[in-house]
């Protein structure tokens, strides 16, 4: 039952990803951009231009390019079917390898921010729902509205100004470690894990110190919608018929609280998934402010350089991760709420 559901969802997801790959493929070729002259420069000779064009494979018909990209002509170059996203036009290395280097940075940042935002937002939202309309509730509500509508990159700059320039509590926003420090061997790509694996607790502390501001920054903007959602779901649960009934048959407070909590958590899963997917690409601004070198910055670099394979790869990978996250959260949702049928 469960397996069948997961398989069905995965196959739908694969079809969706295929549709997305093809759409992106055509979309970027339809737009009036000339990646060749961007690479060889405006003043390059005709021959140099043609040579570069052939080298990138752009002299082939578009359908052939698509087939190569999808992996139906492995003798020319490996494609999606062979698990390859092609070669970056700028660096000449495999896009998969580059993404594998950049992606963990973003995943680490976003996941930590989510955990942090949750740790704060869930109790706050719940307390606020206990006395709806009270002073504290109004304050919390105002905060959630405000935090949910802020330019996160600007707050990042403010944080840097206050905590680095003025107070000196935070390190300079120049990466995941100080430029002087040798990074640990990239086993997982998650720097907090890699430093521990390498047995370098000092570097772990340094990395955590560098992550502190970006995580606070993202968690601040995330806390808005999460608080709002938790508060709303909790209110709805507390005012539901079944909680009223549970009270009216004299169930202990503890049991009633458990009923309400579970009912409030279940519908939250969907929004968390959407937020997570949104943040995977939305984190780019915070990555830029703190020069973390995540997948978002890789995307910016690729887009500005008209590096088509890299663009296609980034969009595909981020969407694929979002779909997996949606699936996982739907599974959790179904585990909490039996009304959700597989």
């Amino acid at each position, binding site marked *: 039952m469960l397996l069948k559901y997961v398989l069905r969802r995965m196959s739908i997801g694969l079809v969706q990803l295929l549709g997305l790959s093809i759409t992106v493929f055509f979309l970027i070729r339809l737009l009036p951009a000339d990646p060749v002259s961007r690479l060889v420069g405006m003043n390059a000779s005709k021959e140099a231009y043609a040579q570069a064009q052939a080298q990138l494979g752009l002299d082939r018909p578009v359908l052939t390019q698509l087939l190569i990209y999808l992996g139906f002509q492995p003798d020319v170059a490996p494609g999606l079917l062979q698990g390859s996203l092609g070669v970056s036009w700028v660096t000449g290395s495999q896009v998969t390898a580059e993404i594998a280097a950049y992606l963990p940075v973003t995943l680490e940042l976003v996941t930590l921010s989510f955990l942090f935002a949750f740790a704060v937002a869930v109790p706050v939202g719940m307390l606020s729902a206990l006395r709806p309309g009270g002073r504290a509730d109004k304050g919390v509500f105002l905060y959630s509205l405000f935090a949910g509508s802020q*330019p996160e990159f*600007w707050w990042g700059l403010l944080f840097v100004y206050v905590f680095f320039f003025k107070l000196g509590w935070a390190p300079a926003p120049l990466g995941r470690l100080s430029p002087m420090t040798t990074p640990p061997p990239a086993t997982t790509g998650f720097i907090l894990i890699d430093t521990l694996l390498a047995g370098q607790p000092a570097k772990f502390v340094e990395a955590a110190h560098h992550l502190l501001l970006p995580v606070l920054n993202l968690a601040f903007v995330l806390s808005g919608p999460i608080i709002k959602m938790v508060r709303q779901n909790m209110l709805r649960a507390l005012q539901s018929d079944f909680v009223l009934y549970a009270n009216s048959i004299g169930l202990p407070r503890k049991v009633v609280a458990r009923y309400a909590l579970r009912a409030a958590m279940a519908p939250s899963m969907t929004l968390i998934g959407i937020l997570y997917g949104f943040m995977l690409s939305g984190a780019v601004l915070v990555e830029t402010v703190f020069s973390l070198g995540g997948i978002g910055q890789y995307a910016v670099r690729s887009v500005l350089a008209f590096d088509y394979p890299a663009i296609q790869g980034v969009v595909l990978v981020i969407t694929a991760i979002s779909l997996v996250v949606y699936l996982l959260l739907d599974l959790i949702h179904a585990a909490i709420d039996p009304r959700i049928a597989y």
Partner: protein
Amino acid sequence: MSALPDIEALPALPPKPADWLFRIGLAIVITVTILAVIGPYIGPYDPTLTTVRVAQPPPSLLELPGLLKGWVAGTLEYPPHLMGTDVSGYDIFSRVIAAPRTDLMIALTANFLSLVVGVFLGLIAGYFRNFATELLMRVSDVMQSFPVFISAMVLVTLAGRSTSNIIIALAFVYIPIYIRLTRAEVLSQKSRGFVEAARAMGNSEIAIALRHVLPNSLTPALIQSSVTIGFAILLTAGLSFVGAGVRPPTPEWGLMISTGANTIILGEWWPSVFPGIAISLTVFGFAVLGNALERRYEDG
């Protein structure tokens, strides 16, 4: 005859929106809208021309009254830089109040485009369910699964960094949201009794869709609008911040923040802080407004 509302079925009342909050939101939105019209003309400097005074900090609060008096009396050498100047010598105040022309225009137009197209497609997809509309929904699904920021960046950069391309790119990423919202509402409205009654009376399907279903399905999309406008402003600014938005010297808040970003770690806070406050307040204003609309809708 009972003319009383059914009190026993009274829905749980949410805390009433603090009225002052709604007024603040409305005031912000109106101010920004007015600035979008007259902003570029009322500043002391041309927002697109540099001055010779580079990176001048804003006057302190103590100097301010004297400066303003002198300005009015015409005894100053040059009009005061109320928010200082940036590294290129632009007057920040003039640019902050000129920027709504860019930011708000992009956000409003993009939202309007996606609203109109999305509501129209959503109505069709919800009301007439057939192979074509199912296909439309699948396409919409694919579009919605695009990472928003990156797709907007790709579209703008590859199509050319112009205002109109930003508008089109934003409209493109927001259309699926409106399709989905409207379709869901249409699906719930079209099985309602008054739609059946209209059919039994002999209305044509098109008349029912336009006269009965559409007006009753608009509310979610309209509420979403104020959220979308806010996010569109953030997105426009974000695109500029990573260098994929409007070109300098267009006055645009995100571009201004970006200009100041390089110097803020050296303590030059003013080039980024003032435009940031403007974005922060503007988007907050739209969020407040949207929230008030949402509550009114939920209360019926």
